[in-house]
């Protein structure tokens, strides 16, 4: 069956199938960027592992950040089925030739930020990711099924952190509100530029890589989140949010995309820090990776000789 027939029948494309170059390139770029986001995303939350305010929270956070590593790993593996190496993809991340989600260029200044990331950032990620479980490329879709299954606890634990804080002392409550104030707009930016300013979207939709437009997903996220904010007793920092009976959706204010483009350009609060941390880990680990390869080569010779 050829590529177009497969897509027309909502079939899945598998690694060794013939596929247009553009499809392959788009997938590699998107999956790699997704994988990079997972592993850079370990840092803002990892920042609070050592300071988590209870041992229960410490365990949850360690498990969560560990999951992000796992998700990055599943995604790199999916990208590798398209004929690229993880090492090359990492190299492109480390040299700034491939991007990761801009949201991770914001700092986690207080413990409540860990809650806000779980609730808003993971919440937005889930809205983005659930449709990817039906992506036309089989290995990506399967990786996303696994990711989504594991992520379901991430958003809940974030909500729980904020709920506890917003029902705690005045200082805790203020901490929670401050975190939501800082993370709300960047979370909306996670869905990307508006549809009429998103040049690759139409092609990705035609290829079945993308299932819904940026603006549709953003709306879905807002609709989902507003009632949750009410349940938390926290305010979303947008005076224009109100229910629109006619549309059957919440209206909300205009996202300032110049901010998003500034962060993408490298001018976010933590761009340099995040990349330096990642590159540092990779470089510091080089001797370990080389040693393991050298040992494996020696063992192979020994076993061959035996």
């Amino acid at each position, binding site marked *: 069956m050829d590529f177009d027939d497969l897509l027309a029948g909502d079939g899945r494309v*598998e690694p*060794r*199938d*013939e596929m247009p170059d553009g499809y392959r390139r788009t997938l590699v770029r998107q999956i790699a960027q997704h994988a990079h986001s997972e592993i850079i995303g370990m840092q803002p939350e990892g920042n609070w592992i050592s300071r988590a305010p209870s041992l229960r929270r410490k365990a949850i956070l360690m498990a969560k950040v560990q999951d992000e590593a796992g998700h990055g790993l599943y995604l790199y*593996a999916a990208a*590798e089925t398209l004929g690229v190496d993880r090492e090359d993809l990492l190299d492109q991340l480390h040299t700034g030739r491939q991007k990761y989600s801009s949201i991770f260029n914001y700092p986690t200044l207080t413990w409540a930020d860990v809650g806000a990331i779980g609730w808003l950032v993971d919440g937005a990620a889930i809205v983005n990711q659930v449709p990817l479980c039906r992506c036309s490329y089989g290995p990506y879709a399967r990786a996303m099924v696994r990711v989504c299954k594991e992520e379901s606890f991430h958003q809940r634990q974030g909500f729980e952190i904020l709920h506890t804080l917003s029902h705690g002392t005045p200082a805790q409550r203020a901490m929670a509100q401050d975190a939501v104030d800082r993370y709300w707009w960047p979370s909306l930016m996670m869905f990307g530029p508006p549809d009429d300013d998103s040049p690759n979207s139409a092609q990705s939709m035609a290829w079945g890589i993308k299932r819904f437009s940026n603006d549709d997903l953003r709306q879905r996220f807002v609709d989902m989140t507003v009632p949750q904010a009410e349940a938390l007793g926290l305010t979303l920092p947008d005076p224009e949010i109100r229910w629109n009976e006619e549309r059957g959706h919440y209206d909300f204010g205009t996202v300032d995309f110049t901010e998003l483009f500034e962060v993408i350009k490298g001018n976010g609060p933590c761009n340099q820090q995040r990349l330096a941390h990642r590159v540092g880990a990779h470089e510091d680990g*080089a001797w370990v990776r*080389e040693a393991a390869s050298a040992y*494996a080569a020696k*063992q192979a010779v020994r076993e061959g000789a035996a």
Partner: protein
Amino acid sequence: MRDWPLWEVFVRSRRGLSHVHVGSLHAPDAEMALRNARDVYTRRQEGVSLWVVPAAEIVASDPGERDAFFDPADDKVYRHPTFYNVPEGVEHL
């Protein structure tokens, strides 16, 4: 220095079921691959047994030969029990 080789991971989720492919990972050698598979793919009690196979060792059929490989099975409907008529009232057949 190139990356460690790629390994495919298969997990038996519980006794009585066969191993199923779950994904892949990088490891310098078989011992580490097996241990990495445990840490990466069985964090939520997903498995009771693991296989790892060097990805380079897998021999796969070619999608270009799919027609020759798999289409000839299409018209052998007599291989399936639903092909046969059974008179009404006859059981355990």
